[in-house]
């Protein structure tokens, strides 16, 4: 009885401890702020930012969210093709933040006024890769010092002329203070990348290791595979229908005959990735060791990985 009483006494107050370490809010200002129409080769000249253009960034570890806030919306002025206009963000938009530093914001409502016409267009901004038709835009994940580039593609016909062709927006900023992203959701990395890439055929295999890969999380959402070689874009394949379940595999098929096959492992076993491409344009003058980077995007998931390939005669090879 006495010991029970002692236990009760010891348990009489349980202290509240911090359980996810709060991530301090930061600020960032998009500069450079790029707005371009690749088909016409035109780029907007966007006004230099002022203090009012700064965005505040707050985080939730629980929901793996970074929220960009501009409580008092400050449209940025720009000019393109002789027309002047403004572009504004909503007061707040959410982006999924991963431990890799990748951000993905779905359907950010950009309000564009140009030549007396105003349009609000939803744009998905990502640090990975965005594709509409033949237009590709790439971002870059947040680095340890907070530098991040978000990219998005706006389909043709959504904005007033001369932005009525497919347009690209690229936003770079340095978030200060840089958040410690270790607490955010783990995402898989592409490892054991191997295969052959040439002008007539491309076959790659690899594994997705770490994080969580499940049919529920990545099927039914658009997928993109992007390959870089030595820092230059090698191929970007869009899979608008995303992955579908086919037996034990998840399969995504592109309009050009490209095919992604993912076999999800049980428990913590890595998922196995197989890629078949009709061919990629390998620079003919590439020789020696070339670093090939693969970026696989499926909905909010971005998996990245790289490996040196041997370049010879317009072909890149790695592994057996």
């Amino acid at each position: 009885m006495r010991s029970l009483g002692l236990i009760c006494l010891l348990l009489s107050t349980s202290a509240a401890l911090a359980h996810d370490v709060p991530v301090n809010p930061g600020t960032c200002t998009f500069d450079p702020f790029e707005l371009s129409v690749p088909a016409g080769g035109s780029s907007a000249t966007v006004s230099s930012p002022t203090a009012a253009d700064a965005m505040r960034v707050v985080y939730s570890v629980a929901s793996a969210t970074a929220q960009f806030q501009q409580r008092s919306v400050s449209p940025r002025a720009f000019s393109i093709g002789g027309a002047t206009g403004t572009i504004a963000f909503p007061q707040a938009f959410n982006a999924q933040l991963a431990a890799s530093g990748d951000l993905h914001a779905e359907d950010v409502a950009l309000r564009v006024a140009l030549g007396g016409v105003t349009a609000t267009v939803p744009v998905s901004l990502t640090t990975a890769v965005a594709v509409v038709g033949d237009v590709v835009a790439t971002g870059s994940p947040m680095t340890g010092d907070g530098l991040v580039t978000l990219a998005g593609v706006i389909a043709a016909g959504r904005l007033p002329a001369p932005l009525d062709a497919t347009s690209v927006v690229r936003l770079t900023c340095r978030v200060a203070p840089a958040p410690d992203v270790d607490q955010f959701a783990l995402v898989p990395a592409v490892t054991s990348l191997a295969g052959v890439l040439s002008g007539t055929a491309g076959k790659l295999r690899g594994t997705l290791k770490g994080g969580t890969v499940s049919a529920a999380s990545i099927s039914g959402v658009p997928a993109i595979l992007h390959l870089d070689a030595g820092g230059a874009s090698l191929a970007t394949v869009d899979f608008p229908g995303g992955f579908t379940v086919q037996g034990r595999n998840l399969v995504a098929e592109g309009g050009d005959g490209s095919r992604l096959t993912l076999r999800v492992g049980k428990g913590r076993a890595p998922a196995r990735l197989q890629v078949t491409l009709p061919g990629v344009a390998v620079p003919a003058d590439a020789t020696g060791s070339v670093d090939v980077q693969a970026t696989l995007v499926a909905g909010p998931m971005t998996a990245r990985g790289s490996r040196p390939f041997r370049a010879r005669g317009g072909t890149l090879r790695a592994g057996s």
Partner: protein
Amino acid sequence: MPHRLLTLTALFLASLAFVAPAAAKTPRPLKLRFPRTVVEARRNVEACFFVRLPATEPFDLSSWQITQQGFSGTGVAITHFLVYLYTGERAGEFPQRQKQAIESRACLDLGPPDRDARQLIASANTASTRGAVTPGLSLPLTPTPSAPGGAPDGIGILIDANWTNGAPVPRAVSARLVLTAATPGTVHRRLTPILARDAEAGIDVPPFGIGATDSLVDARWRPPGDVCLYDITGKTHVRGRFFAVEARDAADQPRAPLDGLRHVFTGAPTLFGAPDYTDPGTRRFPQGLLLGASESLRYGCWHENGDLRPARLGCEETPGAVPGAPGAPAAECRPGCTCVPANVVAGSTPDDEACALAGFFYDAAPGGSCDVSSLPAVN
């Protein structure tokens, strides 16, 4: 695979405890196992596991033991291990026969809309923890229905484990929980749960603001007579910044004890204060804190909406009007709607808020004493 067998065995043994319990015999202990969970290198994981034990009669809990495996010398630390009794009426909407724990902060992402109807019954932050209800008291684990209007058919236990792996490699951890019933003839009072949510009518925080429920609602829990407080805690969701409660005397003045955590916004003393929504902690009074019939507990919450954490976003329904009002949280953003900052109000989703006073009390002995040892046994 072995852990699954153990879990099934534990569930089977637990169910046996409720099959034709013999009168005057102590029911068998309930033995539960939190499934093996891998904590990735240098990660902080909060995982949740729901178990439903078939039962139609309450289980008079008197003590418990929590044993967690996988910690000695591994670099894994226990941040919290919380055991809740589910008191809602939708137990059938929790994941059934879970094989793996589900990651979720404060266990807000699983279960039915009334998932906040739960009481903290045990906790641990060491590898082996024993705890007990004060002798003479018991904490009834009361069965609840699977669906609204149904007959109570099971005891729902929700376990919330938060582990941190400081090692550079993944580590596997698991836990066992043994709940022991009171010996017949030893219980003089059964604890009664408190779950007061009146303050939720006062949650109405505009975008980028901070709001206090007590600016709109004077939320009180009033005892049904002379009672003894046994345990109190608070409950908010992710945007909760502080929960505070104080005891008020018959003249409606704050009364002792006021040695809880000081209010983080006002600096005022509290009976109990909590700044952490995932593990608010509890204030326990093992010998009971007498609260007279004319006294009350005054409680309230402070919530934010975009200050340190993301603002609530919702679909704009009327152009120019901020969506979300008490009783009608903003609709979640979806393709096709204009997603704008919304008011934070009370609601059942993790993105909406809560403000609840929870805990347990028991009826005071005649004469207003919290010593119930001389009362006749009730079990």
